[in-house]
């Protein structure tokens, strides 16, 4: 009983396999076609750009100067077209690889530096002076393109990519197209001309038909491999880290960025320590000394003047309460208690309750970020809420805290009149510096008269520091 079912099951599977094979083959064929078209387009454009000055030269031998200018323009235009097309073609190739295989090939062009103006009003490019800014900028652009290994790699890819598409995709397409064409031809002859069928050797005919179908099958089978090979090659040719050249530049950039943010972090920390030292020295410490002195006096007065001693005692108690208050404020400035106890979400909620403005808080954090990240975000939100209360003239503030795909995003929106005034600037820069230590960024969307949205975004992982206890489950 089970025998037939398995055979039909096997047959169905085989049919399904065949269907999948044909479908994959046809998809790959289409991709091959796309590759060939893409690859052919660049050289074709270049051919016409190159043709213009050559034609002009031919005609110019009779017409003189005017056509010489065209030649000169062509001499400039051709390499420019090479680089431009190279970049376009490389980008297109990257996009295709990402769309087909989901692999992102990183792009790392060196940005063109901005020209700097000296005191005489000339524009300095780092190599030469120009009287006009546009000239300086053009020079910098040309330099950055010519000096960028990524650009040269693009141009090489323009040539090599065309070759790759030709070598890999064209045979697959030809195999399928020729095989299919021949098979259709044979079938037509069989159907139309039964005399040929009767006259010809049926075995030879079948062999021919089999060969045609084998060619089609080979085309379909090879096409996916060709597409994959092409993608591999594209990745090897365009990925700077694989190619080796650009990765150093990228590393240099990263090191520079890290040096900056580290210097900021160290500087901030030193300033913070100085502030704490000063606060302790001028505040709690001084008060405790005063309390000690008062207690000494009380000891002295206890027998001779009890009422005065009692008055001093109450003073000493008030002093100790004030010292405690100051210590509390200090602790709040270093590491807010609710943040330590409950984490970012509740700390911001507590902040919102104490804020002068009505604040709506929405938190979506499955776990807690690392303590330094929590603190940085908390103090940033603190500053933003204070800003909103002081400067924005808003009636309502919304805070959203969200963690998704390894990124913590906090948006603080108010319905105030927008546009930061200069006093807000330094605070925002401070937040930027604070977040920079964690590779975080700050985005401000504040139009005149409109609402202000400030977004903080930083990469971070979540983890739960709270050990599960018996009553946590109860």
């Amino acid at each position, binding site marked *: 009983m089970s025998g037939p079912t398995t055979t039909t099951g096997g047959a169905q599977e085989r049919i399904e396999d065949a269907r999948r094979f044909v479908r994959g083959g046809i998809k790959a064929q289409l991709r091959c076609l796309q590759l060939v078209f893409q690859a052919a387009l660049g050289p074709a454009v270049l051919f016409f750009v190159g043709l213009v000055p050559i034609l002009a030269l031919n005609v110019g031998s009779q017409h003189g100067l005017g056509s010489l200018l065209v030649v000169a323009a062509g001499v400039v235009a051709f390499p420019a077209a090479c680089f431009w097309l190279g970049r376009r073609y490389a980008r297109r190739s990257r996009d295709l690889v990402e769309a087909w295989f989901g692999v992102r090939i990183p792009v790392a062009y060196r940005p063109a530096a901005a020209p700097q103006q000296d005191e005489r009003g000339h524009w300095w490019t780092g190599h030469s002076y120009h009287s006009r800014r546009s000239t300086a900028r053009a020079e910098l652009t040309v330099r950055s393109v010519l000096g960028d290994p990524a650009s040269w790699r693009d141009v090489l890819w323009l040539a090599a990519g065309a070759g790759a598409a030709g070598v890999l995709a064209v045979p697959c397409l030809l195999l399928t197209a020729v095989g299919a064409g021949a098979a259709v031809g044979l079938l037509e002859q069989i159907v139309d001309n039964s005399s040929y069928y009767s006259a010809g050797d049926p075995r030879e005919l079948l062999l021919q038909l089999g060969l045609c179908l084998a060619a089609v099958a080979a085309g379909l089978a090879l096409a996916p491999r060709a597409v994959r090979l092409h993608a591999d090659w594209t990745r090897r040719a365009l990925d700077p880290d694989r190619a080796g050249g650009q990765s150093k530049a990228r590393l240099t950039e990263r090191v520079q960025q890290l040096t900056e943010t580290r210097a900021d972090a160290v500087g901030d920390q030193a300033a913070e320590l100085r502030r704490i030292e000063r606060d302790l020295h001028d505040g709690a410490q001084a008060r405790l000394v005063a309390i000690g002195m008062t207690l000494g006096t009380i000891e002295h007065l206890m027998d001779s003047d009890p009422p005065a001693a009692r008055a001093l005692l109450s003073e000493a108690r008030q002093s100790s309460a004030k010292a405690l208050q100051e210590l509390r404020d200090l602790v709040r400035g270093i590491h807010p208690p609710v943040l330590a*106890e409950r984490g970012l979400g509740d700390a911001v909620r*507590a902040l919102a309750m104490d804020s002068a403005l009505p604040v709506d808080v929405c938190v979506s954090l499955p776990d807690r970020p690392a303590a330094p990240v929590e603190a940085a975000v908390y103090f940033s939100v603190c500053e933003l809420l204070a800003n909103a209360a002081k400067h924005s003239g808003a009636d309502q503030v919304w805070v959203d805290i969200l963690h998704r795909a390894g990124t913590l995003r906090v948006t603080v929106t108010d319905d105030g009149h927008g546009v930061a005034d200069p006093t807000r600037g330094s605070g925002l820069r401070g937040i930027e510096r604070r977040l920079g230590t964690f590779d975080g960024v700050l985005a401000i969307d504040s139009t005149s008269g409109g609402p202000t949205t400030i977004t903080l975004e930083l990469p971070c992982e979540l983890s739960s520091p709270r*050990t599960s206890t018996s009553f946590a489950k109860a």
Partner: protein
Amino acid sequence: MRVVLAEDLYLLREGLIRLLEAHGFTIAAAVETGPELLEALLTHRPDVAVVDVRLPPTLTDEGLQAALSARRQIPGLPVLVLSQHVQQLYARELLADGSGGIGYLLKDRVFNADQFIDAVRRVAAGGTAMDPDVIAKLLQSNARSGPLQRLSPREREVLELMAEGCSNSAIAARLVVSDGAVAKHIANIFTKLGLAPADDANRRVLAVLAHLNGTAEQTG
């Protein structure tokens, strides 16, 4: 009166034990950690618990969590929470079940032994003892809008003391006015806030706080 005490700092724990014993309380248990506290509360079922918010092992808000969790199992278990700092957030969580017998004070208040002991007794009796700091902040964040604006300065003073859990005579003593004047102010406050007048001291405080909480939720 039997007390369960939870405080992880040795000096403060010993000081509190001495203070409470000197005022005639019996220490049923003095514990250091959150899990121990929960167990002690459930086994001893004390007349009142004095609890530090931050307790080992996590040194986060274990004390508060243990107290809340014990109150879920023993409704109305009187708990006085002590903290190095007071937070509206925690106060609202403690008041959320609305069954009274709740106190939330700054640790500094222990300095004033009489007021502290008074607060312990009030909580043990099912009343409320809220730190003036919390009340001030609650009132502050509600003063911008809502019916609180209609109160006169004197009425707000009375409201603050009432929210702390003071009785009419205690308010009269603190503000140096007659009991009758306090009663009149309170009647006015109840009218202006739209609260039904009630004689029971505990219900009165809870009504005020619930009202404050309610308006606070609306305004954020």
